[in-house]
């Protein structure tokens, strides 16, 4: 009797026949760089889309860190291990080299202490993966030429309400990585989910990098 009640109540929650969530473009690339059974830390994991995908497709053991209440609730509903904390201080709780991969997806540009976060990623993980919007995309440049700050699908904010305080281009990131002693082991410059081969610095919308400490 009780079991039946529980089953129907569960069905209520998961019944709406939503199509399989399509993974954000950068998440697909990130997942491709993660080994089966890997121990993964997803920083700023949001509603847990990547974590759930890695758990299902890679049998990864994933922890997420997220500050937002609603996002934490979403993760709980997906039965994910999520830790509510501020990324810029919350990483302290993890010991050195605890994870195979530490992911920071589309959050780097919103970090105040960019260098410290990258250092911490390299400390707690054997490899790090970051993704960020390419500020150097040509549409952003035309917007600037027209005298306006760029607003685009990957950066959908006005200048006065943007959380993005540290926007950069792929080249900028590579210079910083070098300075921090991080070795870049993978790079994907994407537009609409596809790698951009011609003029990627201008034509890619998203940059995804994999790195290791030196």
């Amino acid at each position, binding site marked *: 009797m*009780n079991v039946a009640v*529980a089953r129907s*109540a569960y069905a209520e929650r998961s019944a709406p026949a939503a199509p399989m969530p399509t993974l954000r473009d950068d998440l697909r690339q990130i997942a491709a760089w993660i080994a089966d059974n890997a121990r993964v830390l997803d920083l700023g994991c949001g509603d847990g889309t990547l974590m759930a995908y890695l758990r299902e497709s890679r049998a990864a053991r994933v922890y997420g860190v997220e500050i937002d209440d609603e996002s934490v609730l979403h993760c709980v509903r997906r039965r994910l291990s999520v*830790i509510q904390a501020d990324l810029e201080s919350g990483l302290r*709780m993890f010991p050195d080299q605890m994870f195979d991969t530490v992911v920071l997806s589309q959050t780097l540009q919103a970090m105040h202490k960019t260098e410290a976060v990258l250092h911490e990623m390299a400390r707690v993980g054997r490899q790090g993966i970051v993704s960020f919007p390419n500020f150097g995309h040509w549409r952003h440049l035309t917007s600037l030429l027209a005298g306006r700050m760029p607003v685009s699908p990957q950066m959908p904010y006005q200048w006065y309400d943007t959380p993005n305080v540290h926007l950069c281009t792929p080249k900028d990131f590579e210079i910083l990585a070098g300075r921090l002693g991080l070795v870049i082991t993978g790079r994907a410059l994407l537009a609409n989910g596809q790698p951009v081969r011609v003029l990627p610095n201008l034509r890619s919308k998203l940059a995804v990098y994999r790195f290791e400490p030196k």
Partner: protein
Amino acid sequence: MQSGSVGFVTPRTMRFEEPLELSSGARIADYDLCYETYGTLNAARDNAVLICHALNASHHVAGRYADQPGQVGWWDNMIGPGQPVDTRRFFVVGVNNLGSCFGSTGPMSVNPATGRPYGASFPVVTVEDWVNAQARLADRLGIARFAAVMGGSLGAMQALSWTIQYPERIGHCVAIATAPRLSAQNIAFNDVARTAIRSDPDFHGGDYYSKGVVPRGGLRVARMIGHITYLSDDDMAERFGRLLRTPDYAFGYGVEFEVESYLRYQGDKFAEYFDANTYLLITRALDYFDPARAFGGDLVQALAPAQARFLLVSFTTDWRFPPARAREIVEALVVNEREVTYAEIDAPHGHDAFLLEEPRYHRLVGAYFNNIAAERAR
């Protein structure tokens, strides 16, 4: 989903004849445990949830008594039909711990060896002893494994201890507003409370029952001290501020500020129903709780046997067990690669927040228990 109360409930008592060996080396020859249950134990006997109480609470977790409709269970907003811990799905057990004063054997009980109340001779019990006694109650109720063990504050310490003492008998540990051990400051507050009780002339070294008195003054101070630590500075500022009950300063030492009136009222009320020896005993159990102690302070090793999945919740304004204390547990669980979710609720009510109905908190616990129910139904 309609939310509601479990309605009228009836406490029961289970008698245990087999002696219980205590952490101190002492033993209790036989004892009673008072408990309540809500909901129905299913055929598979896998939907049981144990709720552990903190310092001053009891087995009366939810619902009310027909003869005392004002006596609402202490976690009535959390447990019931349609509540976060839904009694339409779960069989919920509340138990009064050994040494408490709400029906289970404690200092007020008659020691069969002497025919008089135990009083000061009641052995000091620990969180581990409580958990052992709870496990025996589970045996008698036919519960081999709890779907979850849940508690707030000291109750959460019991839930945590379950994962170490009986790792195979607990599916999920839900630990709210807690710490892996008391800090020096926590112990200091407990010591002030105990000193207030023990220095009351009516305490008589703990054997006040035969004298027909209770150390009411000491208990009042103990409760006032405790109560201050349950509230946040902001909460007190909002509720009382510097409001006066008198038209102006009276230039005396009577009750003039609202906060004084409130604390004294709380103290008086508490001294009416709570036993002073129990207060000593439970605060001592709090002081002693430290699962890492056996491992040179290493909580990671202490939690290594745990197999349960964990939900930990802390409240930003809780200065008794602040978020940093809960994070110590989370960190040790992560290192042990246990499944753990940790939420930090930004709520203004200090330590007491765990007893209050805060939507973010209750939705989170509800979602977590929804998963537990779903997992069982699979």
